[in-house]
């Protein structure tokens, strides 16, 4: 039977799963099934939830497939290396002036943009200008309806966001025994 989780655990879960939904297609698909089915009669397989993954002490399997989080970690590593993304997000920015944040944002923007362009082809879902009127012949997943959502197709409205779609994602191949969780190693300068 399913017991309710306390609020803090739920917050944590929603935070980690949001990343996982983004980067782990299989997990997202399972979650979608779960959602379609309404309240599940069985709790989801605990191993599928990162918060509950039990440590696997037995049977070290170096040949096992790499963790499903690896590509997400790889992307974070890339964004950190090229654009200091993790540094930026991890730092408290409240006490800094906009000019300082702006200067840092240039580093983050330029680097993350370079990393994104080198590894993904991102295209807009709609090519019409934002703010222009648009008629949608039938509902489709790539356009989300907002506002007075009622009635049936065709839908007439104003394009507010053109949307993004990743057409191609080519992350570097992971080789050797590299610890993927090491998004940035510490640095020690020898003199």
């Amino acid at each position, binding site marked *: 039977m399913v017991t309710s989780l306390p609020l803090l655990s739920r917050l944590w879960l929603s935070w980690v799963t949001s990343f996982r939904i983004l980067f782990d297609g299989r997990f997202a698909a399972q979650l979608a099934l779960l959602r379609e089915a309404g309240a599940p009669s069985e709790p989801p397989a605990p191993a599928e939830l990162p918060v509950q993954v039990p440590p696997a002490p037995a049977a070290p399997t170096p040949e096992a497939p790499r963790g499903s989080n690896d590509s997400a970690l790889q992307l974070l590593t890339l964004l950190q290396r090229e654009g200091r993304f993790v540094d930026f997000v991890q*730092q408290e920015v409240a006490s800094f002036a906009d000019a*300082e944040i702006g200067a*840092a944002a240039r580093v983050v923007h*330029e680097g993350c943009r370079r990393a994104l362009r080198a590894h993904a082809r991102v295209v807009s879902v709609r090519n019409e200008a934002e703010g222009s009127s648009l008629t949608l012949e039938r509902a489709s997943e790539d356009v989300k309806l907002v506002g007075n959502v009622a009635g049936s197709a065709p839908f007439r409205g104003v394009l507010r966001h053109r949307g993004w779609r990743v057409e191609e994602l080519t*992350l*570097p191949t992971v*080789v*050797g025994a590299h610890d*993927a969780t090491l998004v940035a190693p510490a*640095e020690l300068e020898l003199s």
Partner: protein
Amino acid sequence: MSAKFVVGIDLGTTHSALAVAELGGTDERVSVLEIEQLVSAGSVAKRPLLPSFLYFAHESEPALSLPWDSERRVCVGEFARSRGAEAPQRVISSAKSWLSYGGVDRRSGTLPLNAPDDIEKISPVETSFRLLDHLNEAFRAARPADGDLAEQEVVLTVPASFDAGARDLTVEAALAAGFEQVTLLEEPQAALYAWIEQNGDAWRSHLRAGDRVLVIDIGGGTTDFSLIDAVEQDGSLGLSRVAVGDHILLGGDNMDLALAHVVSQELAEQGKELDRFQLGALAHACRGAKEKLLSDASLQQVAVVLPSRGSQLLGGSIRGELRREQVERYLLDGFFPAVSATELPKVRPRAGLTQVGLPYASDPAITKHLAAFLARHAFADPASGATDARPPTAILFNGGVLKAEILRTRVIDTLNGWLAQRGSAKARVLPGEDLDLAVARGAAYYGLVRHGRGLRIRGGTARAYYVGIENPMPALPGMEPPVFALCVAPFGMEEGTSAALPPQELFVVVGEPVTFRFFGSSTRRTDPAGSVLERWRSGELEELPQIELVLPAAGRAAGDVVAVQLQASVTAIGTLKLEAVAQTPLVPDERWQIELSVRHGSSAA
């Protein structure tokens, strides 16, 4: 010879690239092969360019694994370059410049120059071999069905300014990598082949007989000039390379570094001192800022931000800016000043004691180097001995630096100014497309041309070669015996041909190495083999690393003196071969090969 492909390799000073064309197939297009390489610790990706850097892992680091070798301790490419910026003593860069530098023994372990004790230094030849070996591995990994580069025809490009010794060493590296069917091609010629390939048959409508194409190739580390003539040949259009420039160690990296110094000086005035790491990051940031300013005329300045080295990005970052006026002053006026045709590069006298290091150009003004090249080969007074001096009528640009339109425009305007002063017509620009990959593409296309699929650029060797002979004279205190130059290989020898045997005899002691002074000239085009120069104008002959001959004692007594004649030939590969032919042979056609570029230090240095 059942190669399935021709592979063009641009083994560049800062980047290398590889292009492939199928032999005997219906598809004659050339395609660029993306090169798999380590791009960061533990990750491998394909890139069109392979940075020509070699990094040696420290014991504290895990193996530099590749998909085909998990134990490797040395890596080539993007990670080697970025890791090299963090640990500069462990990286080799500019291997190609070392390969052409006679100041070090290019077959002994000298690199990385300031390597710590745990690294076993390697030679410039081995560095080139490792780069080629990586390209071979990447080819095998990308096209497992097509085997090895050893089974393909490989066209390897070299700067037009490479002398016979540097060409030899390049082939040595290629043979070490197992490339048995290798041919050399000059880079500016490769750029023109790429232009021909890109234009298809239409290229003939862009060039007419009588045109003279000036190829200007500015890469990351070197600048190379060539002149190629369009000539009437059996009723149709032919191409002939008529002149090549000197080896100039000056390129895009110098420009980024110059801008970084400008910005770092401004920062220093504001009390912000940069360390070595930040200066490296600044050069990188300046390259990006420069490209933005050069490509968008509406921008007046671009912020250059150096992120703090620690994990706190805010508060520790340093902000500077690069202004349009600075880019114009330091890039345009520093590297491409609008000079007159008679303004030649300054030559800084060499300090008496110099550290081992590459002979970087002492004058950064590329337009002055161009003026010097044209003064010698295009604008020269025909009465001065230079034959066929004619101004260029067309320009072909190559190399990443010239992607910036503002720089191309400056070069064109300067050149056209010189032409107008002489009453000549303006030069047209031949539109090239991919300035980074053209050389590799052109090299692969040349492979097809060798199989009769297109027009071949003629030209032969770009230099005449001479051996120094001491003139016997009574010893005089304080006077060195004068040296005459005996021409052994005339200018423009084609592949697979031999020079006439010069009548002069030289005497060699059996069993003892004999060295000769060796000279090259890119301006003396009419000296036949056997002609002896008693004097020559300054700059006309360039002294090259010495050459060496050892006569094995076989059949002769050690210490005997044997009379030989020196004969030059150009191999099918495109290297110069110099042989000593016995005057009174013990066996028919007795000859010994002379080794080019054996030891370091030319005696003139």
